[in-house]
Structure formats: C-alpha cells, structure tokens
C-alpha cells in the first residue's frame, strides 16, 4: 500500500517540509517530483488503522506543518501519484478499482513522448480508460515495450518498487572555536566529537572512510591541512581519533587553533570472508593503530611491509604501510631449503683492504679486522649508467680469521672498498 502526498499549490519552499512530513511516517519514501512524495505504508495498519485513518493522520500532521497537500492511497505507487495529482483532498483507491478512478484522466498526465502522444490523439485516444481499452497485442506491435508500460499505468496495474530518497550524504563537520586552543587535549575533545558524528553518519549509510582531511584554522587565518590515508576503510570513532592524535603529536600545529574542520571521504567498507581453517591475521583497525604508534616511536618510513623494486641495484627496497595480507596458505612444499642470509650494514662500512694477487688478503674497518682465509669472487655488477646514482662494483665473499663471513665490494666509481654485510 502506498500513500502519495502532492502539494496542492505551488509552494517551492515547502519541498523540505514535505520531506520532513514524509519522514515522520516512514523512512522509506520516494521523491517522485519536488512537490510529490510517495510513502510505503505496508504494515502501518496496526499503527495508524485503515487507509482512511492513515490519510487523516497524514493530513493532520500536514496542517500542523502549514502544508496544503492532496493525499491518495492506492495499491501501487503510480496509481497513488496520478490520483493525488488529479483529485483534491483525500482519495482512497481500493485495490482492483484503480482503472475506475484513473479512467477519466487525460493521457497528457502520462510520461509520453511527443510522437506517442500525437499518434494516440490521432487515434482519438484522450483518456486513461480509452488507452486501457486498446488491444494489448496491437499496442505492443505499434509502440513496443513503451506502449505496454503506458497501458499498464493507465489500467492501474503497474507496480514497481519505490526508489528510496536519501539526503545528500556529506561527511564533514566544522566548528569555530570561541577561544584559540593551544593544548592538544581540549582540541582532541572537539575532534573526538566531530569524528563520533561522522562515524555515526557513515555507519547509518553502511559506509566507511579511507581518507580523513583535518583542516585546522590557526591564528592569523592560516590553514593547516593534514591528510590521513587509511589502508583499510574504518567507521569506528575510537581508532580514528587515536590516529588523528598520533598525527597531531607527530606534526603539531605552529599556532593556536581557532577552527576545526574534518572531512571524511566515504567508501564502501571492507568485507572479508574469513575461513574457519585460515590462520588468524591482525585486526585491521588495531593493526593500523599499532603501526602508527610504532611509526611515531621509530620514525616515518621505518615500519611497514618490505617490497623489492624492479631493479638490479644492490640492496634496493621499499617499505610501505599496508593491511592486506595473504592468509591463504601456499601449496606445501616437500622440503624447504634454507638459504644463506645476509645481514646488511646500513650504511656500508668503509674498509681498508690489502690485496695479494688481485684478491683481498687483509681487511680493516670499524670494529672488523682480520686476515682473509678464503674468498670467492669477484662478481662484477653495474647499472643505471644513465643516472647520477649509477653503480659499478666488484663483490667478494670473504671468510675472515675471526670466523665471520662477509660480503665486501670495491666501488669502481668511488675507488673505495666497503663491507656490505655479514652472512649469517
């Protein structure tokens, strides 16, 4: 059952009041036109009574809101819309009698193309009843699917789901502070409240955010903008507030704050189908917070997942914060081979190397000195010759008298020896 409310006279400013009136009865309604809304009233009988009592209740609320509306209740949305637009006051269209109530309406009420309207008028079709009486197969042959659709509306038989109306979704909060704030704690109080409101709005829309813009207006009308990008969309206030706190502690504003604006970019929340037998992985929100805390401790760019870039440059790597892990187990190998690992010195240790027959014989560096007992090499590598940071070197693996194994190299561009790392 559907109720259509149609503003009986042009009240441009009443559009918002009409929406508010509709919201008083149901959250599920369609805004068919700026002056027309259709409410889904299914299941409201126990609350409001018969269709007539429903209409009277709506009319009473409309009067209180100073709205003059036409109300029609019918079994499908379109019948309710056409009845409300055509009849003043309250109209109740009983089920099965739609054609009787709509039959006298002019076809100009229908969503016709000019060509279709001209053809129908040339045929002498003026009203809904005349269109409804035409043979269905003939209408389909002449007008196709569009004609069948129009005829079903004219007969009052066309039923469709409502297109629910939602307000424009904005996830932004702004507040001008009465006094400039210099301390973090009172500022976080304001930010916490805004984040809570934004997260509530996100959750109500089944959304989350993966980017938050924090715009602080500083004294002197200077804007301080911070952007927090989250690897995993979140809609929980507590971790977001803590992430903002960590960011502000790491990058404190340079003056007192007079205004706070927070904007959240809405995205679909991450949905994970976890398996009963899959290994446990850190909870994304908690992990994000943990990694940010560690980053605050050890410094930016010093925590994350390592990646090896597509280059032959020795020791090249990238590190980035990410939350997406592969929890699918790999195919089990028969036997895993242990690979000899290198422990890198960052930066490489400069060394003095004595050569004998072109091979290292003795080495001296900070904390390392000894006789070379065994060696393998040289391995010559070079690359990126077209860039300023090109490399060209000869690598050696050496076993020292102190029982350690090192990788050393001779940098041909700098003409110096370095210890790159120790095998372990």
């Amino acid at each position, binding site marked *: 059952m559907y109720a259509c409310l149609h503003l009986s006279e042009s009240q441009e400013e009443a559009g918002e009041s009409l929406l508010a009136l509709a919201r008083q009865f149901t959250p599920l309604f369609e805004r068919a036109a700026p002056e027309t809304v259709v409410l889904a009233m299914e299941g409201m009988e126990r609350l409001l009574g018969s269709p007539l009592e429903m209409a009277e209740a709506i009319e009473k609320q409309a009067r209180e809101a100073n709205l003059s509306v036409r109300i029609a209740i019918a079994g499908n949305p379109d019948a309710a819309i056409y009845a409300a637009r055509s009849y003043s006051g309250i109209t109740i269209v009983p089920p099965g009698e739609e054609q009787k109530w709509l039959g006298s309406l002019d076809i100009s009420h229908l969503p016709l193309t000019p060509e279709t309207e001209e053809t129908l008028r040339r045929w002498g079709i003026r009203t809904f009843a005349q269109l409804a009486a035409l043979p269905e197969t003939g209408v389909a042959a002449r007008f196709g699917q569009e004609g069948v659709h129009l005829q079903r509306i004219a007969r009052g038989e066309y039923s469709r789901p409502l297109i629910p109306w939602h307000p424009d979704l904005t996830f932004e909060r702004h507040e001008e502070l009465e006094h400039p704030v210099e301390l973090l704690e009172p500022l976080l109080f304001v930010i916490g409240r805004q984040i809570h409101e934004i997260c509530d709005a996100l959750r109500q829309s089944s959304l989350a955010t993966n980017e938050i813009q924090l715009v602080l207006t500083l004294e002197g009308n200077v804007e301080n903008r911070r952007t927090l990008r989250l690897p995993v969309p979140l809609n929980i206030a507590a971790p977001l507030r803590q992430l903002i706190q960590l960011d502000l502690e790491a990058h404190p504003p340079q003056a007192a704050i007079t205004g706070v604006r927070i904007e959240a970019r809405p995205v679909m929340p991450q949905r994970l189908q976890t398996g009963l037998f899959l*290994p446990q992985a850190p909870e994304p929100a908690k992990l994000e917070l943990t990694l940010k805390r560690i980053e605050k401790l050890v410094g930016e760019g010093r*925590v994350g997942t390592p990646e090896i870039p597509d280059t032959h440059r020795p020791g090249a790597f990238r590190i980035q914060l990410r939350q997406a892990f592969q929890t699918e187990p790999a195919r089990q190998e028969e036997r895993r081979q*242990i690979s000899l690992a290198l422990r890198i010195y960052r930066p490489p240790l400069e060394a003095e190397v004595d050569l004998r027959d072109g091979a290292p014989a003795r080495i001296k560096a900070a904390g390392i000195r000894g006789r070379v007992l065994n060696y393998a090499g040289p391995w010559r590598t070079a690359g990126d010759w077209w860039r300023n940071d090109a490399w060209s070197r000869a690598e050696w693996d050496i076993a020292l008298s102190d029982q350690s194994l090192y990788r050393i190299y001779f940098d041909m561009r700098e003409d110096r020896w370095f210890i790159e790392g120790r095998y372990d």
Partner: protein
Amino acid sequence: MAASPQILSFPGRVQLTEPTGIPEFDRLTGGLPTGAITEIFGSPSSGRTSLLLSLFAAMSMQGKVCALVDSTDSFDPASAERAGVRLANLVWVRCNRHAGHAFKAADMLLHGGGFGLIALDLADLPRRVLQHIPLSYWYRFRRAIEHTPASLVVLSTEPQVKSCATLLLETKRSRLDLSGAPGFHLLRGLEMQLLPRKPVRSATAQLRAEAIR
C-alpha cells in the same frame, strides 16, 4: 592444507608447537613453540639469521602474518625473498640501533595480536647495551604471548631471555662450503649445527644454508 600443530611434552607441562617444514628442526624440537618465547643464539656467521628467515618463510607460507623487530636495521629483503618469505605478510620495524625502541615495538606488536610469528633481532647490538635490558621485559613478553597462537623468536649472540625462554637453541658453524680451484672459488653454502640448550638434549641437528646468488 597446512600441517597441523603438534603437542610436545616438556617436563612438567604440555607445550603446543607448530611444524616449520624444516625436517631437521622439527625432528629436534618438535616444531616451533606457540604462545612461548624461543631464543636462537650463536656467534656471527653461525647461521642464526638463515634459520630465522626459514621460520619466517614457513609461517608466512602458511598464511600467517609475521613481524620482524630489527634493532640494527640489518634485515635484507632480498635474502628473505630468496629464503621463500612471503614479503607481503611481513611487517618490518627498523629501530636504527635503538634497543629501547626495539623492545617497545615488540611489546606493541605482542599486545596488538593477530601475528603468527614475531621476531626480535638483537644479534648485532653491543653487549654493553644488552646487559642493561631488565629481566622484567622478558617476563612481560612471556605473559603477553602465553595463551596466544603466536611465537616470539629472539635472535641474539648470547642467551638473553634466561628463564623466560621455552626453547633455547644454539647455532654453530661447522663448515664453510667453497668449491672451485684456488682463485676461482664459489661460495656454495654453510653447514651449521643446531644444539638444544633448553630443554637440554644430547641430540643435535645438522642444517645447511645454501648460498644463492
């Protein structure tokens, strides 16, 4: 399907362990203890890091998320990739030779939860720094990890974890494998011996780390 956990009996209690896929290691220890601290110590170039990377490879390939707290920035991602570590499942914390940061980061990761293996690499920290680590840290770590499915592995030159370690392993280099004529040598690998120091056993395991260029 990943290998299922095993139960290893230690004197006086039952310890859950996770198979590592390294047959010699599993035969000797029954697997990597979960909800407990394992310490691997040994002299430089004895194969400690190679063993640790193999443990990372085993756990990350099982789909577990691992974390490495690298106190001296000495982790080599290329070595890890060669060892079979799924780098996408590894969180690397670079502490720039700051022992205090390393312990705090390990503590945060342990309390964050969800990791399969957390390693604290103290192998290159000077002895005078390690001597100042209070024993209470290790009690705190043991308390944080017990009753969780995670393992904490500590890598060091000398035993640090003391009584809080459930499994204490020492690595010793037994042989360096170089092939080829003098002057044209090729480093083939390193053979090491794995000795259980806690619980004390007479059995040892021989492992070989292959040098792959």
